[in-house]
C-alpha cells in the first residue's frame, strides 16, 4: 500500500527533501531567477539528446507528460510548489500546496513553524519533500537555483542551500546505485561542540521501500580509526546521529590530542543517501550552530583518466 494518499510528484518535477527540527524556527526560501524560462531551444536540445540515449519508449514516457504539462499551462513561466510532510521514519503526515504561483524574479518564503501548527501536526521533527512544478528542462534536471533552509535556534542562524532535482534516485528500474560514500572532514568533538551527521534515505520513487544500513569510520589526523554501525534509516526517512551517539563518549579523549578535529567516512552499499553535517553545542540544549550539506567527492575526479 502506498504511503501517499495520491501521487505526490511526477517524475519531471524537481524535488528537495529537508529536515525540520522541533523547537526551532524553520524557514524554506526559494528565489526564482529573473532569467528562468521553462524551456528554450538550448534546454530542449539537451533534453531530447539526453532522452534519445535511452530507448524510444523511455523517451516518450519522459518527454510527453512534461511537454504536455507545459503546453497545458500555456507555456507559463510561473512555478507552483507543493509540500509533503513525512515523519523522520518516512511515514506520510500531510500535504500542502502553496496557494500562489510564482513568476521569475519572485521568491517563496515558508515558515514551517507556523505551517505545521496550521496543519495541526504535533510538535516533532519532520522531513519535508518540496516539489516544484517544473525546473530546468536540460541534462541537469534541476531547480534553476538553490533552495535555502534557515534554522533559527535562540540567537543562532544556521543555513544550508542546495538544489532540487528530478533525476532518478534509488529507483531500481531507472537507477541502481553501487553505494554511498560520505566524507565529512569537519568533525568536532570538544567540550563546547559536538558534530552530528544526518543521513536521508531519499528516492525519486514514492513507493521506495529499502531500509539503509550505513557504517561510519572516524579518522583522526594520525590515521587512527574507530568504526561503528550508523544505525538503520527507513525508506524516505532520516536519522541524525552525533559522533558521541555513534562512537561513544570516548570520542572526546580519542580526538583530544588533535584539537577535537577529525573526519568521518560513511558508507552504505546499494543505495545513495542525502547527507547533512550539523554542528551543535555540547550542552543540554544541543543548540544548532551550523549546518551544511555534503557534496559527492568523487565528482571532483571526473577529469582524471581511468580512475
Amino acid at each position, binding site marked *: 500500500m502506498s504511503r501517499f494518499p495520491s501521487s505526490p510528484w511526477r517524475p519531471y518535477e524537481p524535488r528537495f527533501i529537508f529536515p525540520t527540527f522541533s523547537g526551532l524556527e524553520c*524557514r524554506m*526560501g*526559494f*528565489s526564482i*531567477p*529573473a*532569467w528562468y524560462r521553462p524551456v528554450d531551444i538550448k534546454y530542449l536540445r539537451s533534453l531530447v539528446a539526453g532522452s534519445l540515449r535511452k530507448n524510444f519508449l523511455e523517451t516518450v514516457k519522459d518527454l510527453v507528460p512534461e511537454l504536455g504539462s507545459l503546453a497545458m499551462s500555456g507555456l507559463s513561466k510561473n512555478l507552483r510548489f507543493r509540500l509533503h510532510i513525512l515523519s523522520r521514519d518516512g511515514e506520510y503526515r500531510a500535504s500542502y500546496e502553496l496557494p500562489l504561483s510564482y*513568476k*521569475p*524574479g*519572485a*521568491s*517563496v*518564503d515558508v*515558515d514551517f513553524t507556523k505551517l505545521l501548527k496550521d496543519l495541526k501536526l504535533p510538535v516533532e521533527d519532520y522531513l519535508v519533500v518540496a516539489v516544484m512544478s517544473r525546473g530546468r528542462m536540460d541534462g541537469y534536471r534541476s531547480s534553476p*537555483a*538553490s533552495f*535555502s533552509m*534557515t534554522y*533559527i535556534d535562540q*540567537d*543562532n*542562524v*544556521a*543555513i544550508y*542551500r542546495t538544489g532540487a532535482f528530478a533525476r532518478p534516485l534509488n529507483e531500481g528500474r531507472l537507477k541502481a546505485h553501487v553505494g554511498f*560514500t560520505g*566524507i565529512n*572532514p*569537519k568533525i568536532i568533538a570538544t567540550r*563546547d561542540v559536538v558534530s552530528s551527521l544526518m543521513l536521508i534515505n531519499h528516492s525519486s520513487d514514492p513507493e521506495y521501500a529499502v531500509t539503509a544500513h550505513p557504517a561510519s569510520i572516524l*579518522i583522526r*589526523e594520525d*590515521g587512527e*580509526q574507530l568504526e561503528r554501525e550508523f544505525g538503520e534509516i527507513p525508506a524516505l526517512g532520516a536519522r541524525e546521529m552525533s559522533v558521541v551517539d555513534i562512537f561513544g563518549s570516548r570520542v572526546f579523549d580519542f580526538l583530544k590530542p*588533535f*584539537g577535537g*578535529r*577529525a*573526519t568521518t*567516512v560513511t558508507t552504505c552499499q546499494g543505495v545513495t543517501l542525502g547527507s547533512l*553535517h550539523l*554542528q551543535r*553545542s555540547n550542552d543540554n540544549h544541543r543548540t544548532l*550552530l*551550523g549546518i*551544511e*550539506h*555534503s*557534496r559527492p*567527492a*568523487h*565528482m*571532483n*575526479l571526473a*577529469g*582524471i*583518466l*581511468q*580512475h
Partner: protein
Amino acid sequence: MSGDLTIDEAVTRGYPPAVLYLRNDEIVTTEVCAFNYFSIFLKEHPEAAAHVWLFDGAGNQTGYFHKDLGLNGQLQLNTSDLSSNVSGTVAMTLMPKHEAKVRSGKKVTTGYYAQYYSRHGAITLSHEREPVAAESFPTSAWVQTYLARFLEWSGVVLVNPCLALDGAAVGTAALVALDGTVLAERTLPRISPMGACRISTLDLFPDARRLVGHADSFAMEFKGTNIASPFSYYEFANGKFSLHHF
C-alpha cells in the same frame, strides 16, 4: 620553501583551486578542512598534496601552505596562523602525488570545507565554491532570500575567483521584494582578481528598512562579471557570525 606551488601553475596543470571567503580578525577565525579522498577513489595511488593560498580583499597573496597527505590523510588548518588580520579569499587544491592524466579540456576540482568560528561559540560552515578561473566569466543573476527582522545585521560577501590580471569583478546589486518588485538597484564596488568584499545590506541600500517595510523576508540579487556564488551573512551585535553561500 621547497615544494611550493604557484596558483597559476595549479590552474595550468588542470587542478584549479576552489575558492571560499577568508576572514580572520578579532571576531571570526577561518579553519579549512579536507580529507584525502584520492586514497578512497584512487586506491593504487593514495598519496596527495594539499596546497592552500590566502589572499587579502585586494587580491594580494598573504599566505601559502602545503601538506602531503598519505592514505586517509586530512587537513585541519587554522588559517589565522598564516594570515591573522584579513578579509579576502582562500583557495585550495588537492593534487595527486603521482602523475594522473587529466582528460583533454577537463579539469580536476577540489572538494573541501571552511568553518568560521566567532564569538559565544558560534560556528558556521560552507563547502567549497567555484574553482579559480584563468579568464573572465559572466555571472548570471544570483538571488537569495534574507530575514527582514535581521536586516540591520545582514549583508553579502562577494568573491572574485578570476586570476586574470584584467579580471576585476564588476556588477550590480538589487534589493528585491518577495513578489519580484525591484525596490532599489546600484553598482557594486570593483573587486580585484582573487579579492573579496564584505558589505552590509544597509551599506548597499541605506534605505532598505523603509523599502522592505513590514515583509517577513526580502531578497538580494547580484550579477555582473567574475562574481562567484555570493555568501549571505548575519553578524550580530554580540559577535556571532553566520554565513552561507547562495
